[in-house]
C-alpha cells in the first residue's frame, strides 16, 4: 500500500459516479480488490446489504451477491420492480428510507437517470450505484480499471482504443473520465459517425490534457493500442436496418485483424457481447473480457469492505 492510499478512508461514503472518488481513492479500491481475490471470510457477518434492482441485471447483480456471500453477509431487496411495493406506486424516496433501516448499505439499479444521487442524498447508509438509467455505472468503471491495471501493470501512459457506440455508451464515458485522471494516456475513439463521443465530453477531456483522436477504421489503430475496449452497437440506436448491418460489419473485431498488434494488447468488453467480437478472438492471448467480468467480484468486495469500514485487509 502506498503512503497516499494509507490516508484514504471511504467509510460511510457512497459511490454514485466515478468522479466522486479521487485518484488515490480509486487506487485504494483497486489495491484492496487485489488483496481480496479469492478471499472468503465472515467480515460482513451480522451485516445486511440491500440489493434494490428495479431492472434486471445478470453480471452486476450476481457479482454483488457473490461478493456479499464471500464476506459472510446477508442480502435483502428485490431483483425487479415486479411484485414489490414499487408496483403499488411507492416512491424511490420511501423505498430508500425503508431499506436504510433494514440494511447497512444499499446497492441500487434504477431506470431513471440521477436516481442513485437522489438515493445517496436521502439514505443514511452508503449507496452504491449499480447503474442509473443511461447515466452512470461506476462499479463497471472500477472493474474496467482493475482489468487494465491487472494486464498492463499501470494505469498511465497507455493507448486505449474504445470502439462501438461511443455516443450512448455510459461505460466509455466513465472510463474516459477515469483514465483522464492519470498522466500520459492516449484515447482513440473508433465509431460510426452517428455514434461519436459527445463533443462536450471531448472538450472536457482535452481541457484535462488528454491526448485523443477520433477514427472510423478499427483495424488501422489496432497496432498502436495497449487496450481495446469494445462496446455493443444497439440496433435501436441506428436509423435503419441497412445502416445497422453496415456498421455491425465495420466495427466487428475478428482474430484475423490481430496479426500486427502488440503482444501485450488486451481486449476488454463490458458484456454482454452480441457479435462485435467474433468467437475466434476468444482463443487468442489478447481476449480478456471474461477475466475482466470475473474481476467484478473482488472489486465489489473491496467496495463493500471499504464503504462499511471493515478495517485492515487480510
Amino acid at each position: 500500500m502506498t503512503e497516499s492510499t494509507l490516508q484514504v478512508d471511504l467509510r460511510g461514503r457512497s459511490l454514485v459516479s466515478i468522479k466522486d472518488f479521487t485518484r488515490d481513492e480509486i487506487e485504494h479500491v483497486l489495491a484492496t480488490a487485489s488483496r481480496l481475490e479469492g478471499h472468503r471470510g465472515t467480515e460482513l457477518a451480522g451485516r445486511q446489504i440491500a440489493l434494490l434492482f428495479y431492472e434486471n441485471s445478470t453480471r452486476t447483480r450476481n457479482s454483488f451477491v457473490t461478493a456479499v456471500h464471500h464476506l459472510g453477509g446477508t442480502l435483502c431487496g428485490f431483483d425487479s420492480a415486479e411484485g414489490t411495493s414499487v408496483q403499488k406506486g411507492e416512491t424511490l424516496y420511501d423505498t430508500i428510507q425503508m431499506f436504510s433501516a433494514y440494511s447497512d448499505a444499499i446497492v441500487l439499479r434504477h431506470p431513471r437517470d440521477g436516481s442513485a444521487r437522489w438515493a445517496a442524498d436521502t439514505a443514511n447508509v452508503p449507496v452504491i450505484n449499480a447503474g442509473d438509467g443511461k447515466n452512470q455505472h461506476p462499479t463497471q468503471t472500477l472493474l474496467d480499471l482493475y482489468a487494465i491495471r491487472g494486464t498492463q501493470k499501470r494505469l498511465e501512459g497507455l493507448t486505449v482504443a474504445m470502439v462501438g457506440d461511443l455516443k450512448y455508451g455510459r461505460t466509455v464515458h466513465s472510463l474516459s473520465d477515469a483514465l483522464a485522471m492519470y498522466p500520459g494516456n492516449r484515447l482513440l475513439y473508433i465509431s460510426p459517425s452517428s455514434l461519436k463521443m459527445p463533443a462536450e465530453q471531448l472538450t472536457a477531456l482535452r481541457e484535462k490534457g488528454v491526448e485523443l483522436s477520433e477514427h472510423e477504421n478499427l483495424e488501422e489503430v489496432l497496432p498502436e493500442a495497449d487496450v481495446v475496449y469494445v462496446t455493443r452497437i444497439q440496433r435501436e440506436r441506428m436509423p435503419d436496418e441497412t445502416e445497422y448491418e453496415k456498421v455491425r460489419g465495420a466495427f466487428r473485431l475478428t482474430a484475423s485483424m490481430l496479426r500486427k498488434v502488440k503482444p501485450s494488447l488486451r481486449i476488454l468488453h463490458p458484456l454482454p457481447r452480441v457479435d462485435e467480437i467474433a468467437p475466434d478472438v476468444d482463443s487468442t492471448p489478447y481476449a480478456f473480457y471474461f477475466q475482466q467480468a470475473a474481476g467484478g467480484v473482488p472489486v465489489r468486495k473491496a467496495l463493500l469492505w471499504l464503504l462499511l469500514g471493515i478495517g485492515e485487509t487480510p
Partner: protein
Amino acid sequence: MSSKTAERQYKVFRIENGTVIDHMPHWAARQVVELLGLAGTDSLVTVGFGLQSDKMGRKDLLKVENRELTQQEINRIALVAPQATINLIRNGQTTQKFTVELPLEFTGLARCGNHGCITRAENVPTRFSTVSREPVALRCHYCCFVTRGSDLELL
C-alpha cells in the same frame, strides 16, 4: 436613443417606489411578467418592448410600482434575462442598482431538460449548478444533464 429621449421616457413612466428591470432581451419582458406573477395584480406595471439600446440593439424594460424583488425572483429573471439590471427605487431615487447573477448552485426555478431524469418522475426538487450564465446552461445535480437556455422550462 439619445440621452434626452431616454430621460423623457424615464420621466413619463417614473415611479416613486418599486423596481425597474432593464436590459432584458427583446420580448423577454413577457416571460418576466409571467414569472413574477404580475398579470392580474394591482401593481402598476409599465412594459417597454424593443427599446433602442447601445449595448443590446433592442431591449425590453419593465417597471413595477411598490414591489421589491426577492433573491429567488431575481434568480428567476437571471434565467431568462442574464444581462438584466435591477434598479431599486425608493422615494423617487435609485437606491440600489445591480446586474442579476445566477448563483453557482441553486434549487428549484427550472426543470431538468432530461426527460429520463428522476426529477421528472418523482417529487424530487430540482437542483442545478450553473455551467454558464450567458447563454444559460445548467447541470442537473442528479443526472448531470446540461439544460441550455432555449430548452429551459421554468417552474
